[in-house]
């Protein structure tokens, strides 16, 4: 067991170094492609584009380490930002509105947590349900309207920089939260319990770990962080529409898994997740500078996600001496043929219309 843990730890150490190496490579390539990349002001400004992702990533690390998932996190973001905007448009003070929205996000997280922990429902299904439900409530509140006209004291959350410097306020918020979440994960009993639940939940129950309470706590945390991310996002946009942050849950999960947190639970580090956030941030920023469309950037992120799991596995298989027998070669050849045929048709049929 001890040996197993230490060898695991070595693997994760390697994983984080790999992320660092990738970050260095991306930095060098980006700096060569665009002279605007290695510019302190630009880099600092671009961090604020990723802070809502980072803030949602923190509880997601907790949740995935316990072997669960929260697909509703971006919908909770949408619900709390929309509720705040709706109350604000109804004449409420913005901070009071935000406080109410924060309270509702606690309830949203609590509903997830109770259904998952008490009723023992699978988190994937519960949060697919609440993904629709919470986002739906955001639409019910705002409809096709947008809430806008937030006071400068509020938009400071998303747009402001620390007095005199160029450091965005949101970056500071993230840094403080990341430190707290990291310490809780790696230095407290609560953090150890998260790993324990992820690697062997029945054993945890038998040894008296308060599994239910811990699960409810992490889903409530997820709700609260989603609300914070929502406020920052709304503050940055200066307005709220009910579709705010739609689909961000997938990016958050991608970053978390890319950071080496196992989707099956039981392993992963906060440092890894933060490095993955930096990597994805730099990749997106660099691609944006050389005018790569957002959706095309998503291809690179998606590839990175799959390869980050696939390559280590294939490497292990190869090093385990799995030879390239005839069957494997035949299958590989078929796969390559299908891919080539698809690619040929892809570009051929595309050219027919676009060159007319």
């Amino acid at each position: 067991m001890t040996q197993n843990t230490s060898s695991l730890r070595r693997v994760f150490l390697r994983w984080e170094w790999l992320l660092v190496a990738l970050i260095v490579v991306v930095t060098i390539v980006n700096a060569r492609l665009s002279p605007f990349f290695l510019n302190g002001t630009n880099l600092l400004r671009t961090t604020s584009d990723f802070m809502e992702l980072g803030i949602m990533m923190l509880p997601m690390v907790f949740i995935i380490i316990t072997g669960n998932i929260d697909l509703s996190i971006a919908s909770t973001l949408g619900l709390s930002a929309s509720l705040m905007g709706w109350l604000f448009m109804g004449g409420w003070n913005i901070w009071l509105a935000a406080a109410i929205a924060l309270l509702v996000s606690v309830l949203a997280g609590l509903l997830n947590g109770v259904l998952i922990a008490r009723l023992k429902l699978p988190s994937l299904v519960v949060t697919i349900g609440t993904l629709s439900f919470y986002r739906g409530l955001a639409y019910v509140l705002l409809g096709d309207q947008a809430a806008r006209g937030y006071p400068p004291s509020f938009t400071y959350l998303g747009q402001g920089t620390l007095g005199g410097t160029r450091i965005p306020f949101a970056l500071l918020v993230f840094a403080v939260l990341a430190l707290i979440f990291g310490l809780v994960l790696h230095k407290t009993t609560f953090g150890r319990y998260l790993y324990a639940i992820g690697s062997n939940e029945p054993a945890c129950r038998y040894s008296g770990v308060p599994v239910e309470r811990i699960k409810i706590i992490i889903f409530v945390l997820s709700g609260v962080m989603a609300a914070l991310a929502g406020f920052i996002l709304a503050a940055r946009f200066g307005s709220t529409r009910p579709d705010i942050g739609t689909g961000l849950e997938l990016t958050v999960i991608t970053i978390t898994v890319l950071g080496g947190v196992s989707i099956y639970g039981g392993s992963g580090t906060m440092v890894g997740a933060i490095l993955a956030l930096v990597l994805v941030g730099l990749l997106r920023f660099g691609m944006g500078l050389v005018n790569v469309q957002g959706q095309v950037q998503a291809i690179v992120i998606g590839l990175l996600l799959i390869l980050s799991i696939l390559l280590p596995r294939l490497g292990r298989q190869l090093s385990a001496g799995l030879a390239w027998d005839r069957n494997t070669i035949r299958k590989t050849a078929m796969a390559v043929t299908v891919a080539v045929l698809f690619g040929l048709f892809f570009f051929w049929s595309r050219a027919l219309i676009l060159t007319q």
Partner: protein
Amino acid sequence: MIADSEAYRRPQRSLVQAFVKFRELGIVLIIVVLAVLVSLRNPAFLTADNFRDIVLNISILVIVALAQTLVIITRGIDLSVGSMIGLTAMMVAFTIAAFPAMPPLFAIPLGMALGAALGSLNGLIIAGGGVPPIIATLGTLSIYRGLIFIYSGSKSTINAYEMPPGFRELAKGTPLGVPNLILFAIVVAGAVYYFLRYARAGRDIYTVGSNPDAARFAGIPIQRTIFLVYVISGLLCGLAGVLWAARFESAQTNTALGFELQTVAAPVVGGVNIFGGSGSVLGVIFGAFLLGIINNALTLVQISPFWQLAAQGLLILLAVIADASISRRLQRMTSRPNR
């Protein structure tokens, strides 16, 4: 109707059988109650025309939800279905527009082949590479959606006037009295029903999902079975893509964006176990039908359409809670743990 569901179970598992029976009965009851309530408010609900509308609206969902069901039975999930539909819809629409003289029916095998190619990549990554399905398809969700943008380039929409008029008949034509779209859904449902009940590979899907270890000992090719369900998922998404483009007479970069959630919702509401191993075609159709009725009813009783998404989410939650309480009662009745 209910008796049919027995067919999906092996005879010795009579308790699970009873459970499935009850499960589908539950949905039917909800559907009946809902229908009565809505028709009290608006008699237009219980008309043949409205029924036809509902069925037409859920036809594509039924096709893709059945594909999703096959995947879920093997303990997997395919989050890339929306992107596969969008990509095949766009590619088929382009090809149809480039060759107006081509018989429109040709679009069907073309779309299915393209979809199967996309699905086989998913299958390869999951069955061959050992990547967890949720991660692999989360990745290809982004990749395939991005490919739509690369493919369409400066032309983000392809519209009705660019396609030959015969193409829309694929979905809207009524040579047999009902719209073709509904016929396609019926044929797919029949094929999946037959496949799951009688085909060896179909039976293997249940075994792999309910007990992978036993499947291995029984000599069932697990990897091939898992690969197969993702190929079928891609194939049916390709078909759905063609029908989508024909029905809406357009293909856009955001076609079927987010559709994956509904395709998971229908099986879950229809009693398919998200942990794999069980699920019936009839249940999935009822699940999709319930989703369709709710959307239709909201309009008829003049509730703001903005409630649609929230109602859908609430329905999913209620369905899983009901499902869990039933199976827990079942668990108490038998000492054997029930997955």
